[in-house]
């Protein structure tokens, strides 16, 4: 589906520290017993945020100072583990539009981009600067400029990276590929026709 191009994402940030934040952490499997993605936002980072008896833990994600955040800032290998789209779906449905990390696991990155959740890479040092800026000024507006590979916060900025294909898709609004894939139906049937195992 052709959607609105995403050139920039602007919002307040919240820092979720740690490398290898896996998809079980983002959305524990026990909350995936569902047949739609509705309501998944409520369980985002559930076990990071809640004790076993359901009380709030001391964590940035529970801190009222960051309640309006719409950009997550985290560590390396963010989204590793399962291919569950429930992870970016829960991020999106909890009101986040973008993730700034040191690196992303591949399947998570693809799933997020398909949904228009912007995932950009920034260096350890630059993420540290952004995290400490957020900590000191939670009201700080952060802008991820997808077009110009830049993260702007206040009057400062740091560079960021995003895979070329993903960047093009976001900028053109074609990040959900289904329409384009549907157009190729005749060529698909030609490719399939040449493969014996595809025959009915």
């Amino acid at each position, binding site marked *: 589906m052709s959607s609105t191009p995403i050139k920039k994402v602007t919002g307040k940030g919240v820092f979720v520290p740690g490398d*290898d934040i896996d998809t079980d952490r983002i959305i524990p*499997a026990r909350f995936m017993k569902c*047949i739609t993605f509705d309501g998944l936002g409520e369980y985002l980072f559930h076990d990071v945020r809640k004790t*076993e008896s359901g009380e709030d833990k001391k964590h940035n994600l529970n801190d009222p100072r960051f309640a309006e955040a719409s950009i997550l800032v985290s560590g*390396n290998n963010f989204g590793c583990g399962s*291919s*569950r789209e429930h992870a970016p779906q829960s991020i999106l449905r909890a009101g986040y539009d973008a993730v700034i990390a040191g690196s992303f696991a591949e399947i998570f990155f693809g799933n997020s981009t398909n949904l228009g959740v912007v995932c950009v890479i920034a260096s350890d040092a630059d993420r540290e600067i952004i995290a400490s800026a957020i900590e000191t000024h939670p009201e700080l507006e952060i802008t991820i400029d997808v077009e110009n590979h830049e993260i702007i916060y206040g009057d400062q900025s740091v560079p960021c990276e995003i895979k070329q294909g993903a960047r093009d898709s976001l900028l053109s609004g074609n990040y959900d*590929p*289904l329409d384009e894939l549907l157009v190729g139906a005749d*060529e698909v049937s030609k490719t399939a026709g040449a493969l014996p195992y595809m025959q009915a």
Partner: protein
Amino acid sequence: MGKSLFEKVWDAHAVRQLVNGQTQLLIGTHLIHEVTSPQAFGMLRDRDLKVQYPHRTFATVDHIVPTNESVEPYSDPLAQGMIEELRNNCADNNVTFFDTNTGKQGVVHIVGPEQGITQPGTTIACGDSHTATHGAFGAIAFGIGTSQVRDVLATQTIALNELKVRRINVNGTLPPGVYAKDVILHIIRLLGTQGGTGYAYEYAGTTFDKFTMEERMTVCNMSIEGGARVGYVNPDETTFEYLKGRPYSPKGAAWDAAVEQWKSFASDTNCTFDDVVDIDASHIQPTVTWGITPGQGVGIEESIPAISDAPTQSERDSVAEALEYMQFEGGSPIRGKKIDVAFIGSCTNGRLSDFQEVAKYVKGHKVAEGVQAIIVPGSQVVAKIAEDLGLDKIFIEAGFEWRAAGCSMCLAMNPDKLVGDQLCASSSNRNFKGRQGSPTGRTMLMSPIMVAAAAVTGQVSDAREVFGFASAGV
């Protein structure tokens, strides 16, 4: 210049280039299960699209099925709702469903190969990150998200970037008591949990040449834990032997033609790889994870690393976080950690040979007091053969519970879960925080034999000593 299997299979399935530079790639075989497909069928309905190639999608139910309750409705209404949704979606769209009453149901990555659906030179996708398992047959198999499941249902294709290929050669003979599971835990420990990002892993070398298909599947299964979305082994006589006569394998003249074609997909001897890693099989020990990522593993003779051992601050932070969660002391020996639960099963190690090997050694042993030990066959087919061989009786006699087929305690979407901060010796694939169902539950990954050794001693132990392997301590 020759081509790798990855390039050949990619080229044979590449439909066209998309505007953003990605490839529209034909997915020949699509496997679905109850967790990641219902939303995709919903998206199809919302857009009034139909399943384009229904005969190339195969379904089974695995994540939510209880392993100790066979009569529906299940006591968990959410689980019941999910199985019914899948049943209806398959019936409405003419998709083959290996339902619980077919004798063929099981973990999707065990069902595909044992039915002969998984074949060399094909592309396979499933809304499940352990889909690389099928790469053991020389297929290019991807884990995909639900929007991509929708894309495959509607178009039989996905949009994808081509991957680089890293060849991982493991040469030599594994010491007694060292298994395929140890090989992959060793590889991930060596290359890291994100070392494979952007790569397909081609596993090769004399160790893989000698491996059975089930051993190859165990290794390919965990490619994603090393960051690689795809992992594969070139097809050879072992592959063809396994596939011959399976329900969905080609028959008669078509079989001979298929084998010829399959052989042609193997990597050319003169092809180049983006990276090559060489590993000596004789250096691999029974490997056990001590932390909260599959890369945090050590050999059974080693100690858990101390925080100060890590070279960078971020690694020191990771070790500290893992030690705190696992309640382990840095620098302490891995052996001797007292376990509460032992789990043998999953798409990594829930196949017949896993159970045969364990049965051979647990005979005459008893599960230690206070340990709950469960053995869960990966499919109904595996369960039936194991029972015909009397393996279930050996396990029960030794104090293990013998369950029905499913994902069970690998991910806790069913009643099999850890409680509180229980420590589990597990033959599964992930030791993430909370993975086995309790937010404070602790998982140590290891081979089925090592799980069995932990079960009978009540603590992490060297299976070679517990079961008296010929060359213990090698």
